[in-house]
Each structure stands twice: as C-alpha cells, then as structure tokens.
C-alpha cells in the first residue's frame, strides 16, 4: 500500500533489455455469424516482458476481453500468433505446453460467476494444487491454500478455507479468484475488469494487493479495464494500450499516454471521463465527436474505423487506408522492444 511509485524504479520496463515473456503478433478473432462476419479483434500486436504491467483500455465491444482470452490461450486466434517465451503456443506440446498453461492465468470480471458455488474455498484452491503437483497430499494442499489466502490478504485464512462462495462478499470472492490463479505460480495474469463488480470503497485495496503481488512475486499483469483512471493508477510504471472496435489505436507508457494523449479517440475518452473533483471535472474541455454512434462490428467503417466520429477526419485519407500503429519517426518493428508512444492515426503520424 505504500510507495507504489517505487515500482517504476525497479520495474524492468524502463530498460528494454528483457525479451518479451508473451507476445501477440497481429492476432485476429473473426467469428462467422448468420448475420455476417464479426471482427471482434482485428490485428492486435502487443507484448509484455516478465513482471511487466500492461493495461488494455477501451469501451465495451472493443475486443479487449477477447484479446485477453487469446493471450491466456483460451481462444485460438483466427489468424496471427501468440508467443510464450518466444515460441508459438500452438506448436507447444507436452511439458512445454503445460509450462505455458500454468504460466499464464486469467482472473474473470464477475467473481459471482467465476467460482463454482458448490465448492468450498479450500476445495477450489486444492484442485489445481493437487493436479499440478504443487501439493502431494490433501493436507499439504490445505496448508498451501491457507498460505495463498494470506498472500491475497484474506486473513485469518483458516476462517475462509471452509467457506462457500455465497458466504463471501464480492471483494472477498475476487481475492479467492486471484488466489486460485496463483496456485499454479503463474508468471503472467490476465485480469479482465477484476474490480468493476466490486464496491467502490474497496476497489483500490484489491488493486493494491495485485500490485504487491507484482512487486513481491514478479508476476506480470495484463489488466483489462474500461476505466482509464484505474488503468493509470494500476499501470503507473507500465504501459497502457487503448483499443477501439477491434484495433489498438494508441500504446504508450501510462504516465505519458494519460498526460499527453495523441490519438483523437484517446483524447475524446480522456476529456469525457467524469472525475471525482467538482472543480476539475466541470472545467474540463471536451472533445466534440462528429457522431455518437458506435459502429457495429458487423459493418465496420472503411479505413480508420474511428473516422465517422473523428474530429480530425480528413477526406480522402482516413476513410481510405487503415492507419498502422507506429511511433512518429520510428518503424513498426521497433514497437515491442521500446517504450515508444505509438499511435494509429494518419493525421497524428503526419505531425
């Protein structure tokens, strides 16, 4: 809970030396439906180094959850690759695959749906511990489960082991879900809106617990949220990616992206977010959009998908070609390994 900012000092993000732990390479998730092809994710590239925090921000339907599930190996992208420690996960077999499977875990949004109501907390945690040999006996599993509960601040842990989910609050359940992810000692956790269903008053403590895990265990996070303020708080030392209808439109260091947004969509988003400070929020300058309509995934606009709403729209350019995510003055290839601030916008890229 203290010295959160210290993360930025020892976080490996500040130098680019580590090889990425997990990489999404131009992944697509296109689903055929009776009413047409839904392009839920349309060419997203992203990588995270060991222990790094990356946030994915966007409104509902932007593909952030699907991207998260692809990263966790729960969905196979219709095209593109997912690399874990540099190797394509679709080619991993046997022990190699298990290493990946255990290495990347998912925490769901809804703690009321993500824990089986028929099992006690102890049973929920014991199953993966036994299955993957982290505990040889059921008593060892119980001991380890208690340790994990301590680790996620569910104390005294003994009180929680024999409880059923319905005896717990939303926040407590979400802690159990995190503890369950930790049973297999993952190196990377995809957290899909983990606090959106938890009371405001205790959201931050959950985030602080996760930040402590990152600090103490070196677990990396892909934090998916619609709330830029939460993303800014959680990813202060890491990066934020902003998604809009299936594509990444801006990617950069959290502090930089929020303070100095480049893409018109990010700017609109930042200017629209209400803040818990009456003076501040009532004085904010708004970015006016040209349209309020959110495009249907079945019928995406040509060129840049944001062009029908974009205040900086230029005829003959934006509706014609799809802008690539690139940092002004750098090539696309450099993106992974550096902390550049990249934008997918013709107008911004032109400078």
């Amino acid at each position, binding site marked *: 809970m203290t010295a959160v900012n210290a993360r930025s000092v020892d976080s490996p993000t500040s130098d680019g030396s580590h090889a990425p732990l997990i990489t999404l390479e131009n992944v697509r998730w296109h689903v*055929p439906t*009776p*009413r*047409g*092809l839904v392009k839920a994710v349309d060419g997203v590239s992203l990588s995270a180094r060991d222990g790094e925090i990356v946030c994915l921000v966007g409104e509902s339907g932007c593909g952030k959850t699907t991207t998260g599930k692809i990263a966790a190996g729960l969905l196979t992208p219709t095209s593109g690759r997912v690399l874990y420690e540099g190797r394509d996960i679709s080619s991993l077999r046997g022990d190699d695959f298990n290493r990946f499977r255990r290495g990347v875990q998912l925490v769901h949004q809804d703690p009321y749906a993500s824990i089986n109501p028929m099992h006690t907390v102890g049973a929920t945690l014991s199953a993966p511990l036994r299955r993957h040999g982290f505990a040889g006996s059921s008593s060892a599993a119980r001991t380890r489960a208690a340790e994990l509960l301590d680790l996620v601040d569910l104390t005294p842990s003994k009180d929680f082991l024999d409880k059923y989910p319905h005896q717990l609050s939303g926040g407590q359940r979400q802690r159990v879900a995190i503890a369950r992810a930790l049973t297999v000692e993952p190196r990377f956790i995809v957290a899909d809106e983990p606090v959106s269903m938890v009371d405001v008053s205790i959201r931050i403590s959950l985030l602080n617990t996760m930040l402590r895990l990152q600090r103490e265990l070196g677990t990396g996070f892909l934090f998916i949220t619609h709330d830029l303020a939460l993303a800014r708080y959680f990813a202060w030392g890491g990066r934020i990616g902003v998604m809009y209808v299936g594509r990444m439109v801006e990617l950069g260091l959290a502090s930089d992206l929020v303070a100095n947004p480049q893409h018109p969509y990010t700017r609109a988003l930042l200017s629209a977010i209400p803040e818990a400070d009456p003076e501040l929020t009532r004085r904010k300058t708004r970015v006016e959009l040209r349209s309020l309509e959110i495009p249907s995934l*079945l019928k995406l606009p040509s060129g840049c998908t944001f062009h029908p709403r974009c205040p900086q729209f230029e005829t003959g350019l934006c509706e014609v070609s799809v802008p690539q995510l690139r940092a002004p003055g750098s090539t696309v290839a450099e993106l992974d390994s550096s902390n550049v601030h990249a934008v997918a916008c013709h107008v911004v890229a032109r400078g």
Partner: protein
Amino acid sequence: MVAASQSLAPAPGISPLVGVWHAVTGNFVVRRVAKALMTIWAVATMTFFLVRLMPGNPIEQYIGQLIAQYGLPYAEARDMAASLFSVDLDQPLMVQYVGYLGKIARGDLGMSIKSQGAKVSDIIVAFLPWTIFCVGFSLLISFILGIALGALMAYWRDSVLDYALTMIGSLLHSIPNYLIAMILIIFLGVRWELLPIVKMRGSMSPGMQPGFTIAFVVDVLFHAVLPIITYVVTTVGTWMLTMKASTTATLEEDYVSFARAKGLTDGRIRTAYVGRNAVLPLFTQFTLSIGFVFGGSVLIESIFVYRGIGQVLVSAVSGRDYPVMQGCFLITTASVVFANLLADLLYGYIDPRVRVGQ
C-alpha cells in the same frame, strides 16, 4: 422460399451460397415450415417401412388371410392387397415408397380392410372433425381459464385462494386423464345418475341433421361435454401453475415496477405489461400440449365412446386394419404438426423479439 432468401442480401465476406443458406435457415417462418414438413415426412416414412419391413408384415398376412379364408388365387389376393394398401407390390421397395409418398400427397390413403370398400380418406374426413372440435375447444377453454386463474394466483400470492388453487392444480395435473374420465362416468353417470351416460355416447344423436341450428349445436355440445370436461380438468392445472410462475417472475421485472412508477393504470399494467409478457413462455408449452392432448383423445374417446379419430384408431389397431391405422396415425400427426406450426407463427407475431429472427 426463393423470395425470402433473395430479400436478405448475403453478408459480406461469406460466399453467396452460404449467405443464401443462412438467409433461408435464418428466416423464422421458412425454418418452421421446413420443420413441419420434415416431421410429416418422417412419420409417413416410418409407417411405410413399419408395414413393409416388420416381421409379420401385414400385407403378407392379409394375402395369406385372403387365400385361406376366401380361397382366392395368390395373384388375385396380391392385387387386392396392393389396392387396399395403396402400393404397387411389383415395384422395387424404393419405387413403392416414392409412389406411396405421391399418393399421400394427393390424399389417397388406401382402403379399409374391415369396412370393405371404404376409402381411408373418407373415414378420416368423417371422424377427424369431431376430434379437432373437441380437443381444440377444450384446449382453448383450458388455456384461457388456466391463464386467468394463474394470473389471479400470482396477484394474490400466499392467499387462501392461491393455496387452494395450487393444491387443486397439482392434484388434477397428477391424475391421468383416462382415470378422470372413468371417475366422471362412475360418479356422474352411474352412482349419482346425474347424466344419461349411455345417451351421451357418440358425437351426436342418431337422426340429428347437421346444420347451423340451435338443436344441432346443443346436441353436439351435449355429446362432447364429458370429453371436454376431462380435457379441461386434466390440463388446466398445468396452465394455472405455469402461468402463476410466469406472472410472478414478470411482476418482478423492472419494466413492471417502472410502469407503476409512471403512474399507469392498474388495468393497463395487468394486460399490456404483465399479462402479455407472462403469457409468452406459455406458448411454447402450448404447442407441446397440443400433441399430448390430441394423442390422449385415443383413450378418452374410447372411454366415452365418442366417435372421433382416436376411437377409429383404437378399433383399427385392435382389428388390425392397417391401412386405416396408418392413415389415422398420419393424419393425427399432421394435425398436430399443423397446429404447432400455427401456434409458433402466432408466437412470432406476438413476441417482436422472435419476429426479427435470431
């Protein structure tokens, strides 16, 4: 079908053929009609092959019987059987099958074995309307009554009325309909002699001239009243209890509280907001119950000696009159399929969410 598929442009990115396929299967009406036709086809096919392929093949049996009883030569007996069963025995099985389907499509269901010279289609035309009248009328009464009582129970939840009706509903629902029929006869007809049970047999009194006269209508109702009571009594409980559950759930919907917040009148809320939404899930059940009640007519008509298609089927089965049996069964199924289709299309009309097609 073509028009329907053309009106929906194939989705971009999918081959036109797939697009047409999706448009056809995506259209609610087209899909429902196709399903209905397929069911009738499946039943026709099943009865055909049952008659032809089962051990103790009735055609062979009948030929044998003709030879044994009347001393007919084999060829003559065979021709007679063929005309009765409305098949051509000289053709390969598949050709016979196709010919059989063709004849069905033209309404030719063969001849009766027992009542010599009677066309099966004529028998069906004479008896089917009575069953449809009786079952249809009962279903309608029972559905409406059940919905009204169920809604009442939901509004007066936990009242004495609710408990009493729930008890009665469960009780009636649990007793098989033929037992109810027997109980009615035993007590109303025999023990207490409240109804002239023997005179009530048949679908109308002998000598009654069909027509739209008061005497005729009264007579028809007089003969149908016991079957109708039986059908209604044995089905109303289900509607009541289902409607109660559905209404209770609907009452808790946000749009109902919101309608109250808007100060709408109670009458309007009960009908357009609660009632209409609560009835929707009952429609799917309604379609299922049509087949059940129609099928149950076999027993009920036998017990009350009501001259409907069910009784014809029972006597055809016990008399091994295969063409009649085959025809009755096919037509019974077709009626149920048709009724289901109607109910489904009506449902599509009532619920705008279905109309759009999923």
